[in-house]
C-alpha cells in the first residue's frame, strides 16, 4: 500500500514538472529578434498595425509551445534494437513509437546520454499505431553500452523552438569490435586437412554433406547444388564433411589492455568473419572463457558477443545472471 502511495506521488511529481528542455533554433532566434524589433517599433510609434503584428508574432510563439507540448506528450517508446552494431560504422537501429491519443508530428529520436551518434525521425504519428523509427547510429567504441533513455525532440510546428524530452528506458547495446581487415594469418588449423591444396580428394565431391551455403567468390562451380539454387534463387554450394572445412581456435591473449586489446579484438573478429565465411569452424579462447568451435553466422554472432564483452567482465556478470 505504501508502495502504491509512493508511486502515485512520483507520478504526480512527474506530471507537475515534466522533464522538458527547450532550445531556440537559428531561425527561431532571428524570429525573436524580429519580434523584439516589431515590439520596439510598436511602442515607439504607437502604430496599431505594428501592435497587431506583434500580437500575432507573440501568440505564434505561445501556440507553437502548446502544439509542441501536445505533440510530445503521451508518447511511449520501446527499443526494437539492432541486428548487429559494429563500432565505428553506422548500424540500423529501431525504436517502436506509439501514442494512445492525438497526433504527433516531426519527432526525431536519439539515445540520451550515450555516445551513440545519429538519430531517426518520423513525420506523422497517428494515435494507436505503433510506428517503427529507423535510424543510423554510430557507436564510437566496442563494448556494452548502457542506454538510459530515449531523447525525443520536435521542432513542430514552425521550427522555431526545439522541444526535447527524455523518456527513461533502460537498455543495453552490445557493440561489436570494429570491422577491419585481418593482417595476421590465423595460424594452423586445429583440425582438418593441413596445407592449402595438398589433398587430391579436395574437390572430388565425396564425403558427407554437412550443409549448404552461398557460393563465395572464386569457388568451384561444380560444387553448386543446382536444385536448391534454383528453388531459392541464389547460388548455393554443397559443403561436405571431409573437405576444406577445418577448425581454428582463435585466441585473445591475456594481459592485453587499452588499444592493444581493441586492436586484437578487431583482428580476431575479422579473422573469424573470414574463416566462417569460407565455411570453416571457429572457436574462441579468451582469458576467462572458451567458446566451442562452430560454423555459421550464429557462431559468428557468438564470437562477436564474446569479443564485445572482453574487458567489461564486471558488467557481464550481472548480465549473465539476468539472462
Amino acid at each position: 500500500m505504501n508502495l502504491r502511495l509512493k508511486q502515485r506521488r512520483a507520478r504526480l511529481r512527474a506530471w507537475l514538472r515534466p522533464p522538458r528542455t527547450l532550445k531556440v533554433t537559428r531561425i527561431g532566434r532571428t524570429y525573436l529578434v524580429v519580434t523584439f524589433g516589431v515590439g520596439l517599433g510598436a511602442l515607439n510609434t504607437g502604430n496599431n498595425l505594428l501592435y497587431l503584428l506583434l500580437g500575432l508574432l507573440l501568440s505564434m510563439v505561445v501556440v507553437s509551445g502548446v502544439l509542441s507540448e501536445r505533440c510530445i506528450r503521451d508518447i511511449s517508446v520501446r527499443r526494437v534494437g539492432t541486428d548487429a552494431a559494429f563500432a565505428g560504422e553506422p548500424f540500423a537501429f529501431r525504436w517502436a513509437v506509439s501514442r494512445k491519443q492525438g497526433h504527433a508530428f516531426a519527432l526525431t529520436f536519439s539515445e540520451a546520454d550515450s555516445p551513440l551518434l545519429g538519430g531517426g525521425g518520423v513525420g506523422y504519428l497517428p494515435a494507436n499505431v505503433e510506428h517503427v523509427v529507423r535510424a543510423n547510429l554510430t557507436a564510437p567504441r566496442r563494448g556494452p553500452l548502457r542506454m538510459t533513455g530515449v531523447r525525443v525532440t520536435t521542432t513542430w510546428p514552425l521550427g522555431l523552438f526545439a522541444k526535447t524530452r527524455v523518456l527513461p528506458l533502460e537498455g543495453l547495446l552490445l557493440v561489436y569490435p570494429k570491422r577491419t581487415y585481418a593482417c595476421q594469418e590465423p595460424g594452423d588449423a586445429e583440425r582438418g586437412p593441413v596445407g592449402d591444396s595438398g589433398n587430391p580428394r579436395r574437390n572430388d565431391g565425396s564425403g558427407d554433406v554437412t550443409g549448404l551455403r552461398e557460393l563465395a567468390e572464386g569457388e568451384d562451380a561444380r560444387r553448386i547444388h543446382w536444385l536448391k539454387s534454383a528453388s531459392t534463387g541464389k547460388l548455393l554450394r554443397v559443403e561436405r564433411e571431409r573437405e576444406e572445412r577445418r577448425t581454428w581456435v582463435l585466441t585473445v591473449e591475456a594481459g592485453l589492455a587499452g588499444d592493444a586489446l581493441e586492436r586484437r579484438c578487431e583482428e580476431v573478429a575479422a579473422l573469424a568473419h573470414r574463416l566462417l565465411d569460407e565455411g570453416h569452424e571457429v572457436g574462441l579462447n579468451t582469458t576467462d572463457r572458451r567458446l566451442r568451435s562452430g560454423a555459421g553466422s550464429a557462431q559468428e554472432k557468438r564470437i562477436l558477443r564474446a569479443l564485445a564483452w572482453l574487458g567489461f567482465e564486471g558488467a557481464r556478470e550481472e548480465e549473465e545472471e539476468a539472462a
Partner: protein
Amino acid sequence: MTKGSRLRLVLRDVASGCAFASMAVSGQLPLWTLGLYGVALVAALAGKRLFARRAKLTALLLLGVAAVLAVNVTSGALNLVVAACAFAGLISAHRLLSAPDAATDGQVHLSGLLMVAGGAALSGELVYGLFLVAFSVLSSVSMALGVVEAAVPEGEPVPVRAVLRPLATGVTFAVAGAMAFFILFPRLNWNMTGPRAAPGLGPATTGFSNTVRLGGAGTIKDNPRIVLRATLSPDPGGDALNAYWVGRTYDIFDGLEWTNAGGVRREREPLLTLRPGGDNLIHQRVELLPAYGGRTLIALETPSRLGNAVANGSTGSRRTFLQELAGGEARFLEAGLSYSYEAYSLPPGGSGDTFRRLPSVEQDALLALPEALDPRVSQTAARVLNGEREPLAAAQKLAAWLQREHAYTLELSGEREDPLADFLFERKAGHCEHFATALTLMLRTQGIRARLATGFFGGERVNDGYVLRAGDAHAWTHVLVPERGFVTVDATPPAHRPSQGSRLLQRLLGLYEALESRWRNSVVDYSFRDQVDVARALVRPPKGSESTERSRLPPPRAWGAALLAGMVVYAAWRLVTRLVGRPRPHEATRFVDLVEAVLLPARLFRAEGETLEDLDARLAREGHPLAPALAPATRRYLEARFGGRPLRQGEAEQLIRALQRAVTAHVRLEAQRARAAAAEPRARAS
C-alpha cells in the same frame, strides 16, 4: 522533388508574395521594384530558380539595387522607410530565386516578416490586414510542412493532409491570441501616428481647377471611387443624404469656360470664416481621401466656417493653414495625400449673403454675359419665363423647362464652337455642366443674378458617416434671392445628379468602404481611450443598452459566466472520461506488483522481461530456498490472470503475508550467513 515539398515551396512563395503585396498596396514603392519582384515571383512559382547556381554572385545585384535606392534617398526622391521596405522586398525576391534549402526557406519567411512590418509602416488599409492574415497562414503552413518534411525519412511521403488540421487550429488560436493581445495590451503613448494615408493605386480623378470648360466627355460620372468621408452632427440619418457639397463657385463665362473674378482673398488662416453662422449650424468632420487629388475643401452647402485642417502625408500628419480664394474656395496651403478638417455649414435654404456685401468684382460678374452669346438664348429665356420676374420662381421655371426639353447624356464628343447653343438648340442633350451653365446664363439674360457652383451631390450612408464618390461630382446654379442670399437651383434631371456608375461596382465598393471604415475605427485608430471603454464595458455594461434590452436578454456578463461554467464542466467531463476510460490494470496484475514488491528485499536478480512464471520456474530449478514459498503465489496468480479464476476476497493478502514471512526469514538467514562469512577470515587472521 516530392509533392509535399513542391506544395511547401509554392506556399512559401505565395506567402512572400502576400507580404510584398501588403507593402505594395500602399502605392509608395517605386514601380521598378514592383516589376522586379513580380518577375522573381512568377519565375519562382514556375519553378525556375534562376539564381540557384550563383547565389553569392547574384547577391552583388542586391548591392547594385541598394546603391540605386541610396541615391534615390539622398536625392530626396524616395523616403527612407519606403526605400528600406523596397530593399526588403528585393532581398526576398533574391531568396525566392535561390536554391531552395532550409536556410533559404528561413530567410524567405523572415524577409516576409520584415516586409509585413514594413507594410504596417507604409499603409493602413484594410487590404493590408487581409494580406497580413494570408501571409501568416500560408507562411505557417509552409514552415510546418518544412518541419515535418525534415523529420520524414528519405523517400517517404509527407503527410500533408494530417498536418493541415492541427495547424489550422493552431493558426486560428494564434489569430485569436493576436486579437486579444491587440485589444488588451496597454497603449502607453497617446499620440497615434499611424499611417493615415497612402496614395493607393491609380491616379486621383477629381479635383478643382481654376476654370470649368464646357465640352468633352463626362466619364467621371461613372467612377465609383470614394473621395470623401464625413460624419455629420447632428446626424440627419437616412441612407442617402442627397445634399449639395460645394467646392467653389464661378461667375464669369466667356462662351467656353467659367472663371472667377478676383484672386486670393486671405493668405494664411488657421480658421476661415466665410460667412456668419447662426445657432443651427451643421458640423462636419470631413476626410478627403487620396482619390480626391485636389486641395480644395468641400463642405455641405452652404459653408460657414472651415478649419482644424490636417494634411496627411506618407511620413505622418501635420496641421496646415488655409487660404481663401475668389469664388468662396478654401484651399490647403500644404500638399498632402489626404486631408481631414472640420466644417460648419448653414442649413439649406439660402446662404444669407446680401448683394451689397459681396466684393464689387463679384457684384459685377453676377450679370456678365459672354460677348458672343447666341441671341436665341435670351429669346428662349424670355419666352419660357413669360414675364416671371421673381428670381427663385423664374429659376425653377427655367430649370423645369430645361429638364423637360433636354436629355441627359455623357456621350459628348468633339470640341464645339459654342457649346451652349449647341446644347440648347442643336443637340438638346448634355451633362450637368451644360444644364447648370444654360440655366445660369438664361437667368442672367433676364437680369436675374446667378452663378455656377461646382462640387458634389449625394452622400451615401456608410456606418455612421457619409461618403462621396468621384462620380458624384456635379455642377449647379446659385440664384441670388434678396433676403435669402444664394439659393441652389439644379437644372439637371434629378435621376442624373448623383454618380452614374454601375450599381454592382458601387455596392461592392460601398461594402468595402464599410469594412474599411470599421477596420480604421477599430484597428488603425484604436487607442488607450478605446481600451478604457472596452474595460469599462467588460466591468459594467453600458447604461443605454441596459435599460432597453434588459427585459429580453441577460447582460453580457451572464453570457460570459455561462461560457466559463460550460468550459469548466467540459474540462471536468474530459477529466472524468479520461480517468474512467483508462484501461484498468487486471486485479491479478496488481497482485503481481505486490508480489514483486515483497520480493524486492530478497535481492533476487531479475532479468529484463522475466515474468513471475519464469522466475518461479528458475527458482524451482535452482532449488532456491524461496521457491516453495513463491510457488503457491505464482500458481494463484496464473490462475487468476489467465485461468479465469479470480482471487477471492482476502486471499491475496493471505498469500502476500505468507510470502512476506518467508522472505523476511530468508533475508535474515542471508544476513547471518554474510556476517559469518565476514567474521570467518577475521577469526582466521587473528
